[in-house]
């Protein structure tokens, strides 16, 4: 009895098939009447558990690079308040994971989980694609985020410069740990 108990407890910890990256790309695009803004972050970490289809992201906010240094400073200082909330995270699951047969062709997947930005956590459901690439796995997703949902206040004076809905693109190349 005890042996079974110990064994069962250890199964999820030992037999984990983890795929990971520390240099995932997360970019966002804001389209507004006055200007379009693109920022790219290549320091996103991601880990995917092949056993269960659960996965997690961590994105350092200071890692977003803007075309313009002032924008970057305002993004950190005034909007994302990165001194207080240095990271954005996501943890969730790929839906119907066990029915999925991952091959070299991109497959549409649905994901659900908790996205935390600016200290505000929200449950989201989005879609993306997954594909095996050599001995790794590539993941790609594009979704929309409304700053207001995450308590990011955009003053009236820059309404024409910053979109109310920001398009976020995530691109990761995971390797087995």
């Amino acid at each position, binding site marked *: 009895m005890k042996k079974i*108990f110990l064994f*069962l*407890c250890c199964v999820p910890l030992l037999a984990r098939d983890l795929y990971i990256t520390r240099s995932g790309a997360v970019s966002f695009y804001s389209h507004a009447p006055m200007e379009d803004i693109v920022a790219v972050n290549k320091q996103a970490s991601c*880990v995917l558990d092949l056993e269960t289809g659960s996965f997690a992201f961590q994105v350092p906010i200071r890692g977003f690079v803007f075309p*313009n240094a*002032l924008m970057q*400073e305002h993004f950190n200082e005034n909007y994302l308040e990165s001194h207080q909330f*240095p990271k954005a995270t996501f943890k969730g699951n790929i839906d119907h994971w066990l029915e999925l047969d991952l091959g070299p062709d991109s497959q549409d997947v649905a994901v659900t989980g908790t996205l935390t930005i600016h200290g505000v956590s929200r449950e989201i459901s989005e879609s993306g694609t997954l594909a095996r690439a050599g001995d790794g796995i590539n993941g790609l997703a594009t979704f929309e985020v409304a700053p207001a949902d995450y308590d990011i206040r955009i003053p009236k004076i*820059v309404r024409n410069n910053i979109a109310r809905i920001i398009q976020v693109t995530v691109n990761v190349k995971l390797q087995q740990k």
Partner: protein
Amino acid sequence: MIRLFLFLLFSATNIFPQDELLDLLVDEPIEPMPVQATFKATRIVNSQSVELPRSKMLEFMVQHRFGTVENGFYDLFGLDEAAVHYDLKYGLHERLAFGLGRSSWQKTYDVMIKAKLIRQTEGQGKTFPITVVIFSNMGINALRKDAIVKDNFANRIRYLQQLIVGRKFNESVSLQVVPTWIHKNLVPAHEDEHDLFSAGLGGRIMVTRRFSINADISFPLGDRPDSFKNGWGLGCDIETGGHVFQLLLTNARGGYEGAYIEDASGSMKGGDVFLGFNITRVFSF
């Protein structure tokens, strides 16, 4: 026993995994990075701050000082008169900038170099507590010949060198000290010093994300004539996108660098102080 077993099994398989996955990532420390925005603008009120124009950006700044407020409504608290300093600065690199300026005070042109030697850093691991900047400015007085004692080009020049040591204590409070050396090639009287040393002090307190209260003052090191007054400025920053507006009250009217340190003329007692504003606008290239 079975209950405990079920509980552990449940917690291990269903609750643990995701958090543990995230923990795997969160363990990665965030590397120390230079602090941002110790001040909103490249000046606090009158004094230079530890901030440089950002890399690859052109910064245009207007310093506008009205006349004395003591005449009240007669000249609308000095608004009828103006002394100005304009400058254009460019960030060659995030740690190096240069600029050109013009002041109505003694019709002075100036050139400046500002370099960030050390950056205050924040984060996990090895961080540095202060930012150190050197600021070097040369002013060329362009008054007509007859207004100058001897018409020798060297007589028109004055230099200012500053070491600006600042620290952002937290999101709201930043302070800096500014040892300053001014050299005038020509002084009005024979007994006047060519080299003047002083120490500036400046700081800000953020009130909201885009509004702060700022102050700076300078103290002479060494002797000054009896008429000397410590130059001070009190103001606020209002930030709106690509602009920073600074509304202020000061006892120094000259916009030019050395003037607010050595040539402050007014005092609060007599009501002989000046309203003014600085506007910073940035352009990216």
